[in-house]
């Protein structure tokens, strides 16, 4: 216990869910009615806003430091962007990683151009309700975007990724100006064992480009659906972000080995501990032991606790329960390590 206390006495621990939430019953029906032309967009938007506020409230009451609006209207990670960019369109369905969930493959036919930006208006509308927590914005990483799309643009993959990053950088800047406290860039494809380090170098450069546009807001590179190869990870930790978020709960063995040898660089650690794809009661002690094992070599002063992936793959009620579990894990870890448990947005 003494070792644990000495490990944690300078640590500040906070919690935040990784990404989107499941839709509630009202919203599922409303979206269906909207598709059938039985509901106008104004009414639908109102219901999306109410539902987002419920999600935000649940996170605040569970002591989350950063909250998301649930991204309840997003059909998949790419869709809202694809829907407002020129020269790209959503096409056929393809399985989304190892889930029984399908996304529509974006088809790029030329260099993408943003007709409008999606996050800033949402942030302006909802961020003020997030206090005392900070409002978190999530963007798909440009390399994941390209690797999960069809490229008929005539551009090389790298060029296409760069043009996507340019748009996302503007998204991030506008969102920050509107009041976002945290910008998270998701690069789950970088955990694919077949992705080579060249893509990691590209991802690192492009994520840095996006985050350089956001001034002092906290920035996160999120890796999930497995652990990246060590040669990929060591390139990713060059990214200019405040924190790196890793899905340790899904691949505990691989991550323990990886993080023991490579660490988090100069970034703060965010540990994806709470499993967002099962309904089991979390094995709390095992999660705490895992966190302590990983943090043993960690020299940072701040640790975020999050979910293994987004919370949109389990039923709505359970996605809310998982937020409470996040709170519990963060609380118990702080108590075990003698660390400070942070509530509300993290001050530097």
């Amino acid at each position: 216990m003494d070792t644990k206390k000495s490990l944690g006495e300078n640590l500040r621990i906070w919690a935040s869910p990784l990404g989107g939430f499941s839709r509630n019953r009202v919203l599922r029906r409303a979206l269906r009615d909207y598709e059938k032309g039985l509901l106008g967009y104004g009414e639908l938007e109102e219901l999306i806003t109410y539902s987002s506020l419920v999600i935000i409230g649940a996170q605040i009451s569970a002591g989350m430091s950063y909250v998301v609006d649930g991204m309840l209207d997003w059909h998949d990670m790419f869709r809202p962007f694809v829907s407002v960019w020129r020269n790209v369109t959503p096409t056929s369905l393809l399985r989304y990683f190892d889930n029984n969930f399908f996304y529509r493959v974006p088809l790029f036919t030329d260099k993408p151009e943003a007709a409008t930006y999606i996050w800033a208006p949402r942030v302006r509308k909802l961020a003020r309700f997030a206090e005392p927590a900070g409002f978190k914005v999530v963007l798909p990483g440009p390399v994941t975007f390209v690797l999960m799309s069809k490229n008929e643009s005539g551009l090389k993959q790298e060029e296409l990724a760069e043009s996507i990053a340019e748009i996302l950088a503007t998204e991030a800047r506008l969102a920050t100006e509107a009041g976002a406290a945290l910008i998270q860039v998701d690069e789950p494809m970088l955990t694919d064992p077949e992705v080579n380090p060249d893509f990691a170098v590209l991802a690192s450069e492009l994520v840095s480009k996006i985050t350089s546009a956001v001034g002092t807001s906290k920035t996160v590179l999120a890796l999930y659906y497995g652990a990246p190869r060590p040669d990929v990870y060591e390139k990713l930790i060059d990214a200019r972000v405040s924190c790196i978020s890793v899905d340790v709960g899904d691949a505990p063995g691989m991550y323990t080995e990886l993080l023991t040898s490579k660490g988090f660089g100069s970034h703060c650690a965010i540990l994806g501990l709470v499993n967002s794809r099962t309904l089991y009661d979390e094995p709390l002690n095992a999660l705490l032991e895992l966190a302590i094992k990983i943090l043993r070599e960690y020299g940072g002063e701040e640790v975020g606790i999050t979910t293994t992936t987004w919370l949109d793959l389990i039923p709505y009620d359970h996605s809310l329960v998982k937020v409470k579990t996040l709170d519990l894990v963060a609380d118990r870890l702080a108590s075990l390590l003698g660390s400070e448990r942070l509530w509300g947005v993290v001050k530097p």
Partner: protein
Amino acid sequence: MTSYRTPGKFPTTVVGSYPKVPIAEKFIKMRKSGQINEEEFYEAIKPAIREVVEDQLEAGIDIVSDGEQARDDMVVYFAERIRGFGPGEWVRVFDNEYFKKPVVVGRIEWVGPITVGLWEYASSVSKERPVKATLTGPYTMLEWSFDLHYGDRKELLMDLAKVIRREVDELVRRGVKYIQIDEPALSTRPFKEEADMLREAMEVIFRGVEAKKIVHICYGRLERILPYILDYPVDQFDLEMKNSNFRLLSFLKDYGYDKELGYGVVDVHSLQVESVSEIMKAIEKLMKEGFIGPEKVYLDPDCGLKRLPREVAKAKLRNIAIAARIARERW
């Protein structure tokens, strides 16, 4: 049981599902809401099965299916008829489409025939053409359910395999000639440990079974999982090929593939109907690889046709059948 003579070369078949006939949708909803009971449902759904079997016959398919008209979802249908599953809650599949992801709440047990009655009915209206029985595999049932009872994936998998085996025995007793286990979830975790675990389950399902034994896998890193599954106790792998631009062919050749092949030649996610010459090119591509003869190749769509408009699905099947006839002349 059937006197129809399946062609010795390039027989045509389907993977299983076919676009839902409106009355099938209606009766699935009525059963779910308790307006009709299970027995009434099985009777009510038969006209839908007859319609889709007729579509397949008209298209010229040699080995047909019941179109899975009774199944709202490939996992939910089975979960609702196996003891140990509890009702699920809504989880999104894509866009604004959801399914009630089943939850394992107790020991898994077979309580009665799940597919047998409708397979028999389909066989009675298939004009003596064989009807393929399609069963959702234990790995996919495991992966696409929530488990709150076992806490041990392998134990749950093996109990699911025993249930499927019981169903297989019932089907064999009634004369089934083609049994396909659908395992789309396997390709999403292309790891040796997972493949090894499923091999044990496949042995439970197929040991000593006297029928054509098929496993269908689709979408994902098939080339990564294939080396670990080639020794499964099955006669045929039915694989999605068209959607992934036939890139698996070179892998199959390299792996020394020697089983029968269910060769997916039309894309079930595209509304565009592949022309006969396009399908012929796909067949030619396979034949050029030289690792398999025409007597081991079954032509079919990449996957189930349920998401397509009915006329598109039928047109795709028709072109497969025409291409098969030409191919039989040529090879």
